[in-house]
């Protein structure tokens, strides 16, 4: 009698266990797929870049020369261009983006906040080639006529703002990247700020903090992981951005101290030269640039993460 009663229960239990097991395996499979894709990607890049790795060796990373005719290739100007434009872009877009997110979540009336957020999310969905066209037709003339002459007039004694005002160049590329990363940073930061419990704000206010003090000292530190997450998203977009950058950076593989001068980014040269690259070493060098971009992304992300760990140590209470 007792055994009979126990059987259905046990059957049910094993069924749910099998269900769990299947779900677990499936989830594991999906997670493994991500890893597998990354491994395949690295393998493909490593394999594809073999001709250039064998013929150029480590000098590829440190050479400034990019000459398809003599098949001498160096990645340094592209590494510089990619890192410089991305970092400059974040320098512009992070304060603006976080500021706008604070306004939307803390200060703006909800109706206005929702309307603006909708528009911002729309901006995030615009294809990058549209931003590139916007840059060519609007940003470049603005830069050439007003912003660059102004920078030369006021800060021209610094090496960063010298040379002719061309309109295109590293600074213009950074500006368009800033505009493109801006919606990501606002929309993700805003979500993070909205997720801060009301208690936190009320506690700060009840202790006599002003609105500003409660936002700056309590809400933002509480939401900082989300805000950092938004910056990573922006960084990822900036590092890999191709079309908009190639349209305004000037596509000149050299390193100038001046931000007004043309430069080149890794993604831009791959897009530009891949279709017509014929020699084995030439193709290999372009694939190797892809590998370099992959590594650069990992290094920059790791450095950014270390920075976060260093800053959160001294920060107030973890969420």
């Amino acid at each position, binding site marked *: 009698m007792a055994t009979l009663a126990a059987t259905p229960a046990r059957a049910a239990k094993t069924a749910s266990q099998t269900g769990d097991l299947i779900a677990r395996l499936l989830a594991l499979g999906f997670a493994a797929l991500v890893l597998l894709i990354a491994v395949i990607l690295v393998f493909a890049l490593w394999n594809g870049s073999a001709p250039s790795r064998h013929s150029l060796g480590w000098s590829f990373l440190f050479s400034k020369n990019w*000459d398809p005719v003599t098949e001498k290739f160096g990645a340094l100007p592209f590494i510089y261009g990619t890192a410089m434009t991305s970092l400059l872009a974040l320098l512009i877009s992070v304060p603006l983006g976080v500021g706008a997110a604070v306004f939307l979540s803390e200060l703006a009336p909800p109706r206005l906040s929702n309307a603006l957020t909708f528009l911002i999310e729309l901006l995030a969905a615009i294809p990058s080639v549209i931003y590139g066209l916007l840059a060519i037709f609007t940003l470049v003339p603005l830069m050439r006529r007003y912003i660059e002459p102004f920078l030369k007039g006021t800060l021209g004694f610094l090496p960063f703002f010298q040379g002719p005002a061309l309109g295109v160049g590293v600074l213009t590329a950074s500006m368009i990247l800033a505009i493109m990363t801006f919606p990501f940073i606002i929309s993700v930061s805003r979500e993070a700020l909205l997720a801060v419990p009301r208690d936190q704000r009320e506690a700060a206010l009840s202790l006599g903090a002003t609105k500003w003090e409660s936002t700056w000292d309590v809400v933002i530190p509480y939401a900082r992981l989300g805000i950092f997450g938004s910056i990573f998203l922006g960084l990822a977009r900036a590092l890999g951005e191709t079309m908009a950058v190639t349209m305004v950076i000037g596509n000149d593989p050299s390193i100038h101290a001046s931000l007004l001068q043309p430069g080149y980014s890794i993604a831009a040269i791959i897009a530009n*030269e891949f279709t017509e690259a*014929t020699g084995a070493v030439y193709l290999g060098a372009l694939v190797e640039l892809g590998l370099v971009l992959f590594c650069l992304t990992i290094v920059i992300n790791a450095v950014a993460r270390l920075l976060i760990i260093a800053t959160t140590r001294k920060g107030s209470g973890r969420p």
Partner: protein
Amino acid sequence: MKQLSLALAAVAAFAGVAPAQQLTGAGATFPAVIYQKWFDEYHKLHPGIQINYQSLGSGAGIQQLTAGTVDFGASDMPMTDEQISKLKVKALHFPTVLGAVVPTYNLPGVTQEIKFTPETLAGIFLGAIDKWNDKRLQADNPGAKLPNDNIIVVHRSDGSGTSFVWTDYLSKISPEWKSKVGASTSVSWPTGLGGKGNEGVAGTVKQTPNSIGYVELIYAVQNKMPYGPVKNSSGAFVKADLASVSEAAAGAARNMPADFRVSITNAPGKGAYPISSFTWLLVPTQIADANKDKVIKDFLQWMLTDGQKISPTLDFAPLPKEVVANETKQIAQIQ
């Protein structure tokens, strides 16, 4: 896709023709417009035959031909010996149309057409001539009020047959260019800004005062961009148009090598425009599929006769008679 193939099947059944014979080609972007037009016209004449063309770029065209993924390739520059050595099946070069590359500029306030010599063009693109009112430029353009401003050079940033023709010309007329830079679809430019595609160069030149760049003739004509005459090897200043480009080809046709791999930049001839070029179809000498073999031969025959008559309507210069005659003989080499 399924609906499309069903529709195609229905059309085929209705018209009572044999199932479509499909051919695929890939390569050069510059002649893509006329190729599409030709394949379209040819399809109208032979509804059973569909030729698809992917304008991926000359380099990609050669690669796909080498890999055997397409029935024919197309390129804006002749294949190099190294590239030919990698082919499993030998390929023939068939010149199809002619193109030209023109120097286009943006000089606010200068209404006169600016003339260029080989020396000034090489000087500007090497960075040796960096002011518009340089003595050498002023000497060629006595009446023009050239500004005392820096010349901003604009070149293609993407690998391109246009760049190949341009740098091939500069290599022929300037020993310094040849040794320092050379000729290729992408080179290490001594100076200037890079724009992506014809539209990138055109956009940058249009927007940047005192700039100079180079674009395909068709592109300059269709977008009404100013371009100047260039001094040719006989010492005459010639502006690019269909006649002067065809004359450059005719001048070169007399010394045409048997395999049609020839550069016609700096060609002889009084009225010849010096920065002209053929563009080629690359067809394998052995085609296993008998049907495809027949179609390709027939298409080439049609392209060399009726096809050539369509070229000028799209601003492409047609081939000279001598070249057409030699190419017609070459068709027999396809087996």
